[in-house]
């Protein structure tokens, strides 16, 4: 049997909406056989069913296509997940993230100050990339300047080539079998190139902790001070958390900000609506998340031989829950293919861009604040914003959005 769809095909990636529509209608449990057998669910009710049934559809083998053992948060289920989530939440409460709005406003204003006189450039490099990186650096207790240099490598971790990922997964699976979860966590962590920098930062923080010095209120402090079953976390465990949060907190929000501005540029009527109605900022962010989910979808794995939508699914088979498609399912949305910033907020916020269920994105409140402030300041400070060329699509299949966004705007008059 041939594959029902080719997720890795640039043509699929360049315009996901019609492919999602065809899959929802013709093959709601779509089969793919590259680089091995896996499936994708695209209807809202099926995506929802899988996301809520974590006992049957586990995250223990990782959120990507590769079967990776060992990890944190997105790669574990209860009880580890419960511990991990609580731990990070100490420094990452929704209330504390929302309280960062003034600080984020100041940051974005400063970044715009730095380039606004130019009148043109790549919106992604100018704004959409640096903002989330700097904010996540603050939260993790990392150096914002150093973190900005790490960006390409971070991307390569979230979306490596499927075959490389599979090879890495095989190695880790072997290690899980011979040495158990902790060893696998270690391998997963050490594969990151940020490892040396993170180790140095952790050592500094441990020294502060040991000396009883006053610690910054960030995630690193929470991790260094945390106790798991009466012991503190190892360096590898801390790196696992930091690496994951660093990646999850940056690339995705970059896509959100880029997608939103790109979609507004393509829909001038919607752009005008938002410009003239600051009350629509929140709805605009949510509509962007619905219409252009920055993460196309994430995987779950069958814990045993099972059947879904009449398809026999062997144990350990990966199924991609296509968030971006659930967000366009006509069973859930009126005129789903219409980008409409005036939708009812209460219905709109229930989109799947942040997942649903126990793995619901912890950074969602932060992403929402960053996107809203970016939208507000871009509209205020980059008047007559317009496209000057064709954007390039991002090459990572799991992510949806643009890599470049060439724009021009009217620079402020020189005084």
């Amino acid at each position, binding site marked *: 049997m041939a594959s029902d769809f080719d997720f890795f095909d640039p043509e699929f990636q360049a315009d996901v909406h019609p492919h999602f529509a065809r899959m929802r209608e013709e093959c709601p449990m779509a089969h793919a056989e590259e680089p091995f057998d896996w499936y994708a669910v695209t209807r809202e009710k099926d995506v929802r069913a899988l996301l809520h049934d974590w006992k049957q559809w586990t995250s223990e083998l990782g959120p990507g296509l590769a079967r990776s053992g060992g990890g944190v948060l997105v790669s574990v289920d209860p009880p580890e997940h*419960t511990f991990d989530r609580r731990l990070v939440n100490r420094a990452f409460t929704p209330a504390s993230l929302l309280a960062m709005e003034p600080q984020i406003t100041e940051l974005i204003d400063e970044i715009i100050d730095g380039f606004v006189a130019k009148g043109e450039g790549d919106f992604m490099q100018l704004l959409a990339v640096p903002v989330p990186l700097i904010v996540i650096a603050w939260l993790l207790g990392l150096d914002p300047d150093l973190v900005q240099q790490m960006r390409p490598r971070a991307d390569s971790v979230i979306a490596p080539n499927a075959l490389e990922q599979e090879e890495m997964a095989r190695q880790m699976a072997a290690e899980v079998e011979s040495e158990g979860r902790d060893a696998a966590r270690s391998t997963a962590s050490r594969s990151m190139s940020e490892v040396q920098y993170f180790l140095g930062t952790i050592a500094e923080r441990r020294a502060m902790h040991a000396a009883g010095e006053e610690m910054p209120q960030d995630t690193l402090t929470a991790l260094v001070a945390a106790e798991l079953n009466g012991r503190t976390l190892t360096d590898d465990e801390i790196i696992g958390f930091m690496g994951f949060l660093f990646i999850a907190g940056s690339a995705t929000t970059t896509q959100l900000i880029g997608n939103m501005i790109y979609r507004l540029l393509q829909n001038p009527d919607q752009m005008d609506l938002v410009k003239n109605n600051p009350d629509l900022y929140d709805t605009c962010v949510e509509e962007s998340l619905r219409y252009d989910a920055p993460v196309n979808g994430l995987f779950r794995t069958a814990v045993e031989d099972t059947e879904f939508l009449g398809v026999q699914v062997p144990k350990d088979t990966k199924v991609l829950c296509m968030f971006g498609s659930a967000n366009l399912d006509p069973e859930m949305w009126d005129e789903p293919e219409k980008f409409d910033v005036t939708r009812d907020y209460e219905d709109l*916020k*229930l989109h799947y861009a942040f997942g*649903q269920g*126990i793995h619901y994105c912890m950074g969602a409140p932060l992403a929402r604040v960053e996107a809203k402030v970016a939208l507000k300041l871009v509209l205020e400070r980059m008047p007559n914003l317009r496209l000057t060329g064709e954007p390039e699509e991002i090459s990572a299949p799991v992510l949806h959005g643009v890599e470049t966004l060439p724009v021009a705007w009217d620079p402020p008059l020189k005084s």
Partner: protein
Amino acid sequence: MQKLVIERRLCLKSGQCSYLQPDVFKRDDENWPVVTIEHPEGEQIEQATDAIEMCPAQAISLVEEDGS
């Protein structure tokens, strides 16, 4: 007396409350959260508070109810 309430207007159906504190919350057929103990006492207040802090939507709260 304190009453535990969920504001559906804010709820994101993340499922965190029923997953973290199943003694106090459950989910209905459409995955909306439902409070199972409206007036938590003792340890239940701690459980409710945990869910309040972890809720990504800030949709849960304990509100004072007058005794009348």
